[in-house]
């Protein structure tokens, strides 16, 4: 069959052994990341120990954007070929993406308070992450407000695609708006020479988040598939 990999049963078969593996990987990366991030890594010479928040904050933002990219890709498949699996994967990834976006905002605020003195500034980065949260929320709300999931998913996919095209525009405009309003007094993270002792926990945490996403995606997909089956069974009655 042409789309063998896209059939739900095949997906269930290959993910059954993968599920514990990815869960264990999550735990491993998480312990490693936490140990290195909280205890082993040296404090930053500028920000002191406050820097340690970075190890939970920055990977969360990365994963949040990654999940949106994944969502857009799946939406594209769902919209063009109407694959059931793509639909289910898309809708399963949304809450996880929203979780990471929320985490990125909260930890960012907790980082900002000791570093800049406020929980929130209308900085370009922060604002665009907030917009990302709204996009996830909109997707979920639109999907939920249709009475039939297969209709909701198509409307929501369309929205996700429009959103992904607009995201760079939104980000650009927000950035430009900020450069006019306030001088960039924030310490930029993306300094080219990041020390390996700091990079390792960062990457470890990113790995932990990534495998967490994979694990949860598999579980949520199974849940969603069960729910769909249940709907079909009920319709047959």
């Amino acid at each position, binding site marked *: 069959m042409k789309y063998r990999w896209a059939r739900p049963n095949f997906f269930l078969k290959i993910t059954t052994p993968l599920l514990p593996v990815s869960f264990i990987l999550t735990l491993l990366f998480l312990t490693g990341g936490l140990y290195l991030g909280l205890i082993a890594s040296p404090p930053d010479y500028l920000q002191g120990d406050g820097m340690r928040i970075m190890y939970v904050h920055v990977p969360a933002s990365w994963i949040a954007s990654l999940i949106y990219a994944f969502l857009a890709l799946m939406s594209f498949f769902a919209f063009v070929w109407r694959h059931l699996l793509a639909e289910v994967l898309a809708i399963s990834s949304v809450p996880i993406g929203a979780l990471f976006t929320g985490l990125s905002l909260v930890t960012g605020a907790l980082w900002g308070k000791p570093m800049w003195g406020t929980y929130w500034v209308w900085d370009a980065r922060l604002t665009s992450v907030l917009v990302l949260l*709204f996009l996830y929320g*909109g997707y979920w709300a639109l999907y939920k407000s249709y009475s039939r999931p297969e209709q909701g998913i198509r409307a929501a996919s369309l929205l996700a695609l429009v959103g992904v095209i607009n995201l760079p525009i939104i980000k650009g405009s927000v950035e430009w708006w900020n450069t006019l309003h306030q001088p960039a007094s924030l310490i930029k993270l993306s300094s080219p020479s990041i020390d390996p002792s700091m990079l390792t926990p960062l990457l470890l945490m990113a790995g932990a988040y990534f495998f967490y996403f994979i694990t949860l995606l598999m579980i949520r997909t199974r849940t969603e598939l069960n729910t769909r089956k249940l709907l079909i069974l009920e319709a047959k009655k």
Partner: protein
Amino acid sequence: MIRREVRHLYLHKGTLFATLTFFALSLFCVSLALGPEEKILRLTTPALCWILAILTTLFSTPLLLKDEAQQGLLDEILLQPLLPAFTLLSKIGAESLLLGFPLIIFGGLFSPFFALSFSETLTLALTLLIGFPALSALGILGGLLTLNTRGGGILIALLILPLTLPLFLLSLICMEKVRLDLDSLPPFCLLMGVALLLTIISVSAGSWALRFAVEE
């Protein structure tokens, strides 16, 4: 074709009038709330005008669409030989003429009361003029996406407001540059580009949304 849509839209003059009144009234209300301080008014009025313009289009356009869907007129659009995107474009054109122009004239007439100078008023009107078709296109997209849902109104705001952000911010940058007597051409060009792009994206997405909105 636009003439046909204008004639069509003109049938809903009640809704249009209510929308315009909403725009004007809320502008007055908010400026009353802010107090008579000229400096504050001068700073906030452009933003207010824009937010209100966004809200009015986001709430009125889907209302009209819902009406049409109930009468089955959306089927008629799809059964036409023309691509549905063109019909949507002409709808946007009609709305800009019947809702956008009065709105801009309103804004222009009243902005001297809010201590805006002539050049600022002109910029405000121009940015609204350029942004309005894109707003209307986004409104149509939102309306079509939420056509078969329960409780559309608030949902549209949630879906579409983040997408209108670039237009809004770029116009405000334009206004600020004009107020500070700086060169406002680059943001203005950018605004035009973004508005055009948003219109194209949302019209093409809208024609897809139209296709499956009628499948219900």
